[in-house]
C-alpha cells in the first residue's frame, strides 16, 4: 500500500514549523505503511557547503567518525548526530575526499543523501516512532517529502525505505509497483548509474536522475517516465527548489492535494492533511492521471 506526504511552504514565517507540520502527517499515514518510514527535509543552504547524511553501521562509532573527520583538510567538517544517522557538512569542493574517508572509516557505511539543502532520514519501524527518533518535529525548512512503507517489491530494510536519492538535492518517494524496473535498472547501469538495492523505486529515482543529467527539465523527465516506466505509481519528487507529483496514466494509487496561501500539501489520503492549519478553507483537489504538477520556490 504505502503512504506519501509532502509539504511545500509558501509563507516564510512557517519555515521553523515545517517538521512539526509534517510529523503528524507521516504518523497518520502509518496505517498505509507500518513497516518503515523516511523523510527528506530541505533547509536553507550554507555558503559553499554540502551536507552528507550517512547511516552508521554502529551508532557507537559516531565518536570515532567525528575524530576521523578532525583530520579533514582545509575548512573543517562539521558533524551532527541524529539517532542512527549523522549529517556531515563539508566544503563543496571536498566531496570526493569525504567519500574516500567514509569508505576507509567503514566500508559498509550507508550514504543516505547528499545535498546543499536536503537531509534524508529513514529507518525500519512505525512512522511515528521513526519521526520521533530523528526529531522531525524540531526540524525547520522550506519543503519536505515523506513516506511510510508497506514493502512489496523488496525486503524490509533501512536501505529499502524511502526516500531514495540518486543525486544531489534530489529524492523520490513512491506508492505503487513498477513491473519493468529490472530492465530499466540494467539500462541505467550501462549509462553509468549505480544502485544500492533491488528496489523498484530506487530505479525510478535513478531514471529521473539520468534524464535530468541528459538535460531534461524535471517536468520533461517525469513526462518521459510515463513512456519508459511500466507499472502503477504515484511519485512525489523532491528537488532543491520544490516538489513535483506524477500519477500513472490510470491513477491506480490515490493522491490528494490541498493549496492555501501558506502552503501546498500532498497526501495519499485526505486524512494526512486534515490536521494542517486552515485546511478547511484550502482548495482540495486530486492530481489528474498522467499530468505533472510542480511547485518551486523562486
Amino acid at each position: 500500500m504505502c503512504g506519501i506526504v509532502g509539504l511545500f511552504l509558501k509563507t516564510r514565517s512557517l519555515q521553523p514549523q515545517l517538521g512539526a507540520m509534517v510529523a503528524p502527517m507521516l504518523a497518520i499515514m502509518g496505517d498505509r505503511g507500518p513497516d518503515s518510514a523516511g523523510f527528506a527535509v530541505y533547509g536553507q543552504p550554507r555558503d559553499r557547503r554540502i551536507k552528507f547524511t550517512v547511516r552508521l553501521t554502529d551508532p557507537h562509532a559516531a565518536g570515532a567518525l567525528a575524530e576521523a573527520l578532525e583530520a579533514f583538510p582545509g575548512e573543517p567538517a562539521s558533524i551532527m548526530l541524529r539517532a542512527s544517522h549523522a549529517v556531515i557538512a563539508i566544503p563543496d569542493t571536498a566531496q570526493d575526499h569525504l567519500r574516500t574517508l567514509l569508505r576507509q572509516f567503514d566500508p559498509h557505511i550507508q550514504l543516505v543523501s547528499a545535498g546543499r539543502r536536503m537531509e534524508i532520514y529513514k529507518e525500519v519501524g512505525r512512522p511515528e516512532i521513526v519521526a520521533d527518533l530523528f526529531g522531525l518535529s524540531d526540524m525547520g525548512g522550506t519543503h519536505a517529502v515523506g513516506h511510510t512503507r508497506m514493502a512489496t517489491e523488496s525486503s524490509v530494510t533501512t536501505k529499502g525505505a524511502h526516500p531514495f536519492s540518486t543525486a544531489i538535492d534530489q529524492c523520490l518517494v513512491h506508492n505503487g509497483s513498477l513491473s519493468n524496473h529490472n530492465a530499466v535498472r540494467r539500462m541505467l547501469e550501462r549509462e553509468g548509474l549505480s544502485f544500492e538495492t533491488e528496489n523498484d523505486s530506487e530505479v525510478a529515482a535513478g531514471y529521473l536522475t539520468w534524464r535530468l543529467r541528459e538535460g531534461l527539465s524535471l517536468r520533461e523527465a517525469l513526462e518521459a517516465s510515463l513512456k519508459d516506466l511500466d507499472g502503477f505509481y504515484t511519485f512525489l519528487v523532491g528537488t532543491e527548489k520544490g516538489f513535483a507529483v506524477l500519477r500513472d496514466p490510470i491513477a491506480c494509487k490515490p493522491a490528494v492535494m490541498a493549496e492555501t496561501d501558506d502552503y501546498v500539501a500532498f497526501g495519499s489520503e485526505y486524512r494526512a492533511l486534515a490536521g494542517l492549519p486552515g485546511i478547511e478553507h484550502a482548495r482540495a483537489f486530486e492530481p489528474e492521471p498522467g499530468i505533472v504538477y510542480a511547485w518551486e520556490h523562486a
Partner: protein
Amino acid sequence: MTTHIDLAHTTVRALNGELHLLAAGTNQPAWRIENPQGKHAIAAGLDAPVTVEIHGHVGYYCAGMNKHATVIVHGNAGVGVAENMMSGLVRVNGDASQSAGSSGRGGLLVIEGNASARCGISLKGLDIVVKGSIGPMSAFMAQAGALVVLGDAGEHLGDSLYEARIFVRGTVKSLGADCVETEPEEEDLTVLKDVLARAGIADDVHSDEFRLYRSARTLYHFHVDNAGAY
C-alpha cells in the same frame, strides 16, 4: 431531535455501531456528525430511514452499502463514496474522489461538485447525478442504472458497457470500447426526467440538453474479431 456526534472524541467504529442499531420508526431519525477529518467508512452499512449529515470532508467508502438512509456530506468525499449502495439518497455537497457510487444497486447519489476517475464503475442499478464533471474511465462495465453528468466526461467513458445509460450534457473526451452515442428514445427520456426530478433539478435542467451513450453490444460474447478490444 438531532443526535450530535463529534468524531474528534468518538471512533468511527462506535458511531457506526450506534447507527447500525437503528430501525424504521426510531426516535433518533436525525444525526449530525462533526469533525470527520477524512476518516474512512463513516456511516457505512446503514439500514434504516434516517438522515445523517456530516460536516466536513470524509475519507473512503462513506455511506457504502447504504439502505434506506439519507446521508449528506457537507464537504468532499474520498474514494468509493456510496459504493454498493442499495437504496436511499447520498448527497455530496463538494467533490468526490475515484469510484463514486461503484457497484451501486439502487437509490440516488448526487454529487454537487466534480467526481474523479471511475465514477459509477460497475454500476448495477443506482442512479448517479454529477453536477460538475467526471474523470476518466467512468461507468466502466456499468450494467444498469443511469449516470447523469451536467458537465463534461473524461477519457474512455463507458468502456465495456452493459445496459446502463450515460447522459452527458457537456463534452466527452473519448469513448471506451463498445460505447456509442445513440439517439434517446422515449423510454430513455423518461428515465432521465425521473432522475433529474429525484435530484431536484427538473426545473433547471432539460432532458433535451443531454447526449445519450449506451453499449453497442458487440463485446457481449466473445468473438475472435473483437480480440483486440478486450
